[in-house]
């Protein structure tokens, strides 16, 4: 097997990287893929909390790269899906305790066993970013529809070029149709006009995310939820399916505009 390593990154903090990572990972696992999630946010780990796995952590990423334990021992199996695993970040150690070379080695090892390896990247463009992208084959950029998040996403896209990631995919998170309609929020078209990369999906702003985060059960597994559907569509597109974009109550022109953008 040779799996694919995807880093989930944004530049700006708090835009939804961890949420996206948990949902895409769970969504791929629901489709039967073997998935490993790596929390590369050392010192500020929280992917384990979002996955509801915090109380099962014994070893972490640093233990693995420092060879205090075997990789197998540090991987935590998900509570609900047998083919989903998490490699947690260390909470206590220094941010520079991992080197990019070690991340590359780790990713190579995981690729042998998993279909997808998703890396939850810390905010910023410093050491933690360099580690998180070192072993990645491709990137998913998460942004919210506001000027500063888009600016940072643009910077990240430029930086990724030096890591030979030239075709990153975009997730626009926390879109509020009511605000877009009033012209108070950038719409998908505005964001895409600047970033001009492949759009993977649009996720609405939805308070149910907070509920599912507290439960440790990512929204993607809830059939009835609107955000869940948005994530399921993203997962399907990662798997190469041609899924139409949800309208999110936008005006009709919205649909056509996205289609046109994607065909470019």
């Amino acid at each position, binding site marked *: 097997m040779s799996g694919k390593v995807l880093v989930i990154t944004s530049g700006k903090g708090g835009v939804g990287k961890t949420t996206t990572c948990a949902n895409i990972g769970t969504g791929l696992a629901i489709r039967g893929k073997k998935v490993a999630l790596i929390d590369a946010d050392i010192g500020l780990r929280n992917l384990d909390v979002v996955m509801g796995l915090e109380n099962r952590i014994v070893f972490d990423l640093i233990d693995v790269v420092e060879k205090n334990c075997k990789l197998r021992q540090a991987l935590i199996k998900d509570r609900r899906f047998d083919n989903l695993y998490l490699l947690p970040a260390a909470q206590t150690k220094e941010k520079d305790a991992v080197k990019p070379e070690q991340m590359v080695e780790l990713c190579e090892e995981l690729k042998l066993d998993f279909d997808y390896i998703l890396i939850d990247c810390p905010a910023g463009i410093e050491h933690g970013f360099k580690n998180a992208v070192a072993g990645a084959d491709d990137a998913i950029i998460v942004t919210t529809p506001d000027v500063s998040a888009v*600016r*940072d996403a*643009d*910077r990240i896209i*430029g*930086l990724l070029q*030096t890591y030979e990631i030239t075709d990153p995919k975009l997730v626009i998170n926390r879109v509020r149709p009511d605000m877009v309609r009033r012209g108070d929020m950038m719409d998908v078209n505005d964001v895409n006009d*600047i970033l001009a990369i492949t759009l993977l999906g649009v996720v609405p702003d939805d308070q149910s995310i907070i509920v599912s985060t507290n439960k440790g059960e990512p929204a993607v597994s809830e059939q009835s939820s609107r955000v869940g559907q948005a994530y399921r569509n993203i997962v399907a597109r990662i798997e190469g399916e041609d899924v139409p974009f949800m309208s999110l109550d936008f005006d009709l022109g919205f649909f056509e505009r996205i289609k046109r953008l994607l065909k470019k």
Partner: protein
Amino acid sequence: MPLSDNGDLMQPGSLPGNNIVFKGYRSGLTLIIPEAGPFENYLQELRDHLKNSHNFFNGAKINLELGNRQLDTEEKAALIRLFQENGLVLRSTGESASPVKRPASKSKAIHGEHVVPTFTIKKTLRSGQRIEFDGNVLIWGDINPGAEVMASGDIIVMGKLRGTAHAGMQGDRNARIFAFQINPVQLRIADVIARGGEKLKRTKDFRPEIAKVKDQQIIVEKFN
């Protein structure tokens, strides 16, 4: 390299030749290692250089400019070791200064006409990326918000200008800025400055536009 990713002012005409070069920029000392040629040779050259400089560089924070050269892990480790042995601190690498064409270095005269060199880039300049060139700059792509282009001559953007552009930066008020849409953060021509959305008089529709100085002001008008 005229393109730098860390906001340094890259002096035109400072293109590396066949030797390593230390340059002082606004943000500190930059070590330039030429793109071509075996890395070991440059490493040896640096070693000799540091030995002869009698701790002059001790404690100095160094930015590294590699152009399109990619260091492998071993090379990087060797360089960092050498830095440490001599008390140098590696601050940043200019690796992110992505694909850049080497510009023609000097202007020439052909049939008595003065020919200005033009620097061409075939991609969108993204936030944090910056180009400075002694001549004209031609961009096949957009200039995004947060990106900057400075030229002593004209700036031609075959796309949207949404960042900052400074034409005629050595004082030429006849320099011009062309783009398919001009909607910048800031425009400068020679010593005249216009901020986006404010002072800028601009046409409404998205036809090709050109910015120039008229009566001490930058005006943007339809190109035809």
